[in-house]
């Protein structure tokens, strides 16, 4: 397996996106719309007594949620381009060339990671511009550029590592776009059943005790910490937990994915 082969495949994948505008648009436009609707609709949430984040405008509180949502939406789409190759049979044609199996899969993950990172930067830009519109100041969050890069890396790793692996495994198993899209609501619910949109003290009791089992909750805490408070000690704790969570889950999902792919070859 040569690195130059992976690079050639990676560049080809990136070029492919310009012919898949729906994939790009879908995972970008939906979160932006949500952002605009939610921030206007629920903006009185910040005034609810007892809200620990009451001193932040609601649109800032939900920015991390929208980032995670973009990461998840974008990752559910990460098998779209792969499915095109699987269904035309081109994937198999390439298996008989140096592109073989592993380089094709690795290059696919690399290009999906790149695409997702760019989309995440776009969403962050939108939120910064929205902040300027409301407050009149163009400013980066407390943690600066480094903070934004960390946010993007965390969210993209979670998206591609956890969601992307599962979705790609499903693509190999079913070869069907519908099957892949069908798991979508599952991840959607995962984001809602967390403190993404509402601080925990305002959540119903049962949900407050359930969110500890929701992996996306840990990611949201880390991203929100960086975004709202900067790299404080408590943020660093959240980041450590989020990173461990990503590593453990990605190990599991990539094992599942590896098995599914090797089994799909008779």
């Amino acid at each position, binding site marked *: 397996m040569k690195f130059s082969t992976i690079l050639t495949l990676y560049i080809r994948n990136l070029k492919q996106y310009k012919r898949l505008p729906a994939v790009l648009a879908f995972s970008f436009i939906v979160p932006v719309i949500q952002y605009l609707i939610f921030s206007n609709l629920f903006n009185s949430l910040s005034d609810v007594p007892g809200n620990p984040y009451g001193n932040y405008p609601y649109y800032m509180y939900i920015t991390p949620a929208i980032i995670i949502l973009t990461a998840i939406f974008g990752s559910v789409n990460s098998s779209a381009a792969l499915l095109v190759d699987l269904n035309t049979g*081109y994937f198999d*044609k390439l298996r008989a060339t140096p592109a073989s199996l592993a380089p094709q899969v690795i290059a696919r993950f690399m290009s999906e990671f790149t695409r997702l990172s760019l989309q995440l930067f776009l969403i962050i830009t939108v939120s910064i511009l929205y902040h300027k519109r409301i407050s009149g100041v163009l400013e980066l969050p407390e943690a600066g550029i480094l903070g934004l890069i960390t946010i993007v890396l965390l969210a993209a790793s979670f998206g591609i590592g956890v969601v992307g692996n599962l979705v790609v495994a499903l693509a190999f198993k079913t070869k069907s776009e519908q099957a892949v899209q069908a798991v979508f609501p599952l991840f959607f619910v995962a984001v809602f059943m967390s403190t993404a949109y509402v601080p925990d003290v305002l959540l119903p009791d049962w949900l407050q005790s359930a969110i500890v089992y929701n992996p996306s909750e840990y990611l949201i805490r880390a991203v929100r910490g960086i975004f709202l408070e900067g790299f404080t000690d408590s943020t660093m704790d959240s980041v450590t937990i989020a990173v461990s969570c990503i590593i453990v889950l990605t190990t599991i999902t990539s094992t599942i994915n590896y098995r599914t792919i090797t089994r799909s070859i008779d």
Partner: protein
Amino acid sequence: MSENNIVVVKDLEKKYKSGTHAVKGINFEVKKGEIFGMLGPNGAGKTTTLQMMGTLLNITNGKIKILEYDVESDSSNVRENIGFALQEAGLDSLSTVKELIAFHVKLFGFRGVEIDRRVEQSLSLLDLHQYSDQMIPELSGGTQRRLDLAVSLVHDPKLLILDEPTTGLDPAHRSDLWTLLKKLKTEKGITIVLSTHYMEEADVLCDRLAIIDSGEIVAMDTPQKLKKTIGKDRIEFKLFESLSEEQIIALKDEFGEENISANDSFFTVRVDDGEETLLDTLKIIIQMEIKVKGTKVLRPSLDDVYLKYTGKRLEELS
């Protein structure tokens, strides 16, 4: 194993997970510069065999060596040196003809001006210039097959594996392709293994043929020798009226009982060389006062060979 053998297949077996025993221990060798054909009915195991050669399927039992490389343990060397056009030409549906060829050139490690040179060469070789900026799904099926072959050849493979390369081509493009494959063989010394349903293709294109049925090779030789195994030529005589008992006896006396078969409207005589002996045979028959309406010489065809070994008619397939 001799150095001349580009492909060596030994006791090759494939059992799919579904339980289908698609290939049941076959053996063959392909020499450098040979065009080796696999002929067989649907489901015979041709694609399964070719895909195991092309590193696309796991081998259940047995061995395949390609250019001395073991297909299982040395698969990356095999992939560098073969070109494989699958039965279903599946190509990148999100790219243009030129982009696709260039991508394949790069996959084999070529860089710089060499990329343009090979793309150009490839477009010319398969007469694809007029389509170079077209999106692949817009191409006709036949053009896609030619493009598939073009990208399988960009790196000058030593072995070309073609699964039904001319299915879906019109007669003109089919014979163009035969000419091209023969040219690749004579000018570049490329070895070709292909599967086909077309008898004519097997006959005019292949140096050697394996007839495969139900996962087994039932016959393997040059097309000429395979046809010889069928036996003699036959001369068929159409009749105005059916033969009398006496005439049949006279015919059997003259040509030997085993060489005559007759029914109401015609009879046939088996001879060693139909064209050479036609006139003499006809003279004898006229002397017997048999009224002949017409005549034709029947030489054993690959179709007969196929029928003999598989019990099926090839023409029904295509």
